């Protein structure tokens, strides 16, 4: 509510202040990942573990990257699937 009021009074969503903030947030997503490639590596491993519960995937083909589009940054993963597990129960159990 307070935030709403603030927004209302300021009406500054396209002020240069807001533009600066948005640009900064975007550029930092990239910078921060660049500083630690180990972070993406760790994410990959965790993803593998979770997805493996549900399907068999080709570990060597797994690709995880941050991609930048016009106004946003997206986590893009390419995960080649070898085989789906037969049932959810079976997946959960393994």
């Amino acid at each position: 509510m307070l935030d709403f009021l603030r927004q209302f009074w300021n009406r500054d969503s396209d002020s240069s202040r807001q533009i600066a903030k948005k640009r900064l947030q975007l550029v930092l997503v990239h910078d921060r990942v660049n500083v630690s490639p180990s972070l993406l590596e760790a994410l990959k491993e965790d993803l593998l573990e979770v997805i493996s519960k549900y399907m068999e995937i080709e570990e060597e083909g797994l690709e995880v990257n941050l991609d930048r589009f016009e106004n946003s940054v997206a986590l893009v993963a390419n995960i080649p699937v070898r085989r789906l597990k037969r049932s959810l129960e079976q997946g959960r159990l393994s």
Partner: protein
Amino acid sequence: MAGRVLVVTSGKGGVGKTTTTANIGAGLALLGRKVCLIDADIGLRNLDVVLGLENRIVYDLTDVVEGNCRVRQALIKDKRTDNLYLLPAAQTKEKEAVAPEQMKALCDELREDFEYVIVDCPAGIERGFKNAIAGADEAIIVTTPEVAAVRDADRIIGLLEASELYEPRLIINRIRPQMVRKGDMMGIEDIIEILAIKLLGVVPDDETIIVSTNKGEPVVMDKRSRAGQAYNNIVRRIEGLDVPFMSLEEEGLLTRLKRALLGHS
């Protein structure tokens, strides 16, 4: 006695590291602390000029490290306060003449005699930066409310962490409250939210800094200056006191509402 070693750093050049170092040093000395400032900006020495001590230099940091003189001989005593000293940078020597291990040893030697050792870091993230942070156990990051400066500050936070300097504190320099209000400049909350780091203080963009730098007198000694007050608050926060942020530093909702209702900018 084992004093604290602080490094003042930023990544981006020209955001106010040297001004900050001089004022924090002078401010702490005014409180009676024994302070030694080290200018680690080899080749571009500035701290001596900001403090008005440029005519007294005989030896420099590189001389000390190379063993041409003892530390005591290179230290310059401040004109105004009894307990403020400066170890100047070399102006015409190579940065490579000083190594991080030597800086660490020097800082450790100085902290035996001083309550605070404050290192003015050069811009950049190369050798000079590595030297400057080598002996520090706390870091102060200076930024201005601009995209490039905040971005560099973020990079520095990462590099400091990689060197096991955790929880640096932030000084936002050259803020212009009116521009923030009009939506033309990033505000304190914006920057803190993005960097996710503790705020040590906010210094307004202030002409008195230029005047005092012209005279070689740290602005913290000028009781009437807004920037001087801001540095004073910062100094007391470094000392561990809980000092509230000045009104310009904190744009509360109430002020905003009042302004919105009364209709002046």
